[in-house]
């Protein structure tokens, strides 16, 4: 098997140098974070994921909302009793949960547009490619720093980008490790890998079997947003969502009035690229229905 080529030493050095500049407010440059566009979702990656949602320490991703979890000794019989460090008088800490997920968020364009749109909600991007994740992380850090050291005349960004985070992970395998039942209200699948070959269809991010898992972590009334520039893939995703008993399609009107759809069309990195190339963009949105009794 061909593994990904050794990282370019020059780029790596540039990245290291970039991160050294403390409290940097300069946005990272994509060219130092390039990586091939595909990753095999079935193979083992060096991933960090919690044993269960209760074990997840979100403080690295949303430091403004979470305090560090103290690690318990493994000998304890009950895994759930993860004791939190005495949170200071700030009661806001540790009460929020991630509500919006961008699966395969790429270079993070959607996250950054969603951040001021939903300043009260925590939004998590998930991306399997390491370099791309590093880029988004650096981008978020820079944006947060820009907001915290406010200059005169600078517009105030609601939420100050403290409500967005990025995690490297394989969403097809490990979503239930991060999210509890009914935790999310929105899931985005923007310009996913089309996996054209029929025998690769199981690697597609929307598949009949994976939809059951998305229905599990989405709350009733929650919405799945999909957009792609590949018509075949659009038809495939819409068909499988249509066929799945846990999802119903949003009407054309509902879809067009949804602010997220507008953002998804214009502000994702892929969306911009497609627009530059004057390609078509196909959107399909589905609501998760109530659980059957």
């Amino acid at each position, binding site marked *: 098997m061909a*593994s990904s080529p050794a990282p370019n030493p020059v780029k790596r050095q540039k990245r290291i140098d970039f991160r050294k500049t403390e409290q940097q407010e300069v946005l990272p440059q994509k060219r130092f974070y390039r990586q091939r566009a595909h990753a095999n*979702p079935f193979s*083992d990656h060096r991933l960090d994921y919690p044993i269960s949602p209760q074990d997840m320490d979100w403080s690295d991703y949303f430091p403004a909302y979470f305090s560090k979890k103290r690690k318990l000794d493994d000998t304890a019989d009950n895994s759930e009793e993860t004791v939190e460090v005495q949170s200071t008088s700030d009661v806001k800490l540790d009460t929020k949960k991630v509500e919006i997920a961008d699966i395969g968020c790429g270079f993070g364009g959607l996250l950054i547009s969603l951040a001021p749109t939903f300043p009260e909600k925590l939004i998590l991007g998930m991306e399997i490619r390491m370099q791309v994740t590093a880029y988004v992380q650096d981008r978020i850090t820079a944006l947060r720093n820009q907001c915290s050291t406010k200059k005169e005349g600078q517009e105030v960004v609601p939420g100050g980008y403290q409500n967005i985070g990025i995690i490297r992970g*394989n969403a*097809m395998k490990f979503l*239930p490790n991060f999210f509890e039942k009914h935790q999310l209200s929105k899931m985005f699948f923007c310009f996913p890998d089309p996996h054209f070959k029929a025998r690769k269809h199981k690697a597609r991010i929307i598949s*009949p079997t994976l939809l*059951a898992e998305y*229905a599990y972590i989405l709350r009733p009334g929650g919405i799945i947003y999909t957009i792609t520039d590949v018509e075949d893939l659009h038809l495939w995703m819409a068909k499988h969502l249509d066929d799945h008993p846990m999802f119903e399609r949003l009407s054309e009107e509902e879809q067009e009035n949804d602010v997220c759809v507008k953002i998804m069309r214009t502000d994702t990195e892929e969306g911009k690229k497609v627009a530059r190339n004057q390609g078509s963009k196909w959107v399909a949105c589905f609501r998760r229905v109530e659980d059957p009794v």
Partner: protein
Amino acid sequence: MSSRRHPVQAIAFAQSDSPKLFIAIAETVYAISATTHETIATWKAPPAPVQGKPQSQVLDVTGKAGEDGDATEALPANEEALAATTAPKTEENVESTDVVMADSPPSVSSTVGKRKRSPSATSIAPPETSDPTETTTDPQKSDKKTRNRKKSEKRKAKNAAKPPPPPQPNYIGQLVPIISGNLLAVTTLEDKTLRLLNLETLEVVKEWVLQKRPSAITLTPAAILVGDKFGDVFSYKIPTPSEIEENSEGKLLLGHVSLLTTLTTATSPPSSQQIGSSGDVKKYIITADRDEHIRITNYPLTHVIHGFCLGHTAFVNRLLATKDNLLVSGGGDDWLGLWDWKGGNLLQRVDIRTPVDAMFNREEAKALTEKLRGYNKKRKRREEGAPEVEITIAVTDILEVDGKEVIVVLEGVPAILRYKYTTDNKLEYAGYVKAAASITSLAVQGSRIYFGADSEEGALVSYVDITEGEATAKDFFDGRSFEGQVVEEADVNAVNERLYTAEAFRKGFGGFMEDD
């Protein structure tokens, strides 16, 4: 070819008209009377159809339509003859592609390997690239074109030159008796097929070709559920005698994006309390995978996931739904999980490490772990200077005996560990039953345990009644040698690779990682 005594890799008991034990040795299933211990019937899996692209290409090129059908229905005797006739054809095929390429050396035998072939392919590069540059104005573009063409030609040639893979024995995977239908469900691994055999005669009455290699099987009252290596679970309806002839297809129920290791069914509330009110009884499928997950899915509404039991830190390999409606799980961790599966709560981590450590000294245990890891070719051997091998545990079977205790078998370990329920419904270690060698299969009937062990000398199949206080196993065949126990095998390690698969599920032992 050398011969090897082959252990029983799967075992099942059926209390039909006459009690029978079904055992699988390599490619053969034997039905044996549990009272007289005589063989009643046998069934040998047909050889798997020869696979691989090069083969079909060869047949296409020669244009003999009949060949294709022959290949797939080849009888055991024909097998070698077929292989012999296809070999020269591969050569023909290589030559014919060479003619298309026009500038390759005229005769390249099929035995020429990848390495030898590539220099010859590069040697033809200069004339090819110089040609188009003279005629076109855009040299860069055409360069790319020829490069692509060359690449695909090279790939084709490589495929054609590859010798056909040696035929693999069509191993028996799982055995499950379906008493109500007087059937035995059998999966075979190489031809990826689920068959229903007559429980008495072992004649094949129905078969379904599966999409992927089966890795787990269980029954519901009306269906056979098969999990595969791609993580999907398919349901196959158990036919009534009148439906046997009808065509029916597997239905996809659910899927993990991971290797599905095991599955079981459970009901809630427990079936003992459901008297009269069947309305509240909910059924579930519980599945486990290599990525530490245990998933609870509604049945038959399999698009609704009820929950997960998360807590394992290594692969999960076996599940047991107990009489008291708890779940026991085991795999690559040092402990068994005891779960309130409905709520997803881990009630107890049952230590299995201490008993194993007491059984072996450290050197023995290390040697065993190394050996089991070595059986899997995909894993690199430990490199010099790498940290010392950690002794690991892999659960290969968990069963409940008579609703009183839980027994556990670990890969490579010559013992059955016993765990008893305490008054507060926890599990407590209660000693072990010693076996002659590592245990390769296990079945329970009432208070009696039947098991197969991988030894050249000891009993092929042993049994023990543990609740009667016995702890020494008896030889099922009472010292007689069993007709099917010696199997011809070219490579002894190949047998081990097929028998010892659990430890290979472990991640991160020098195995391939995409990010490396």
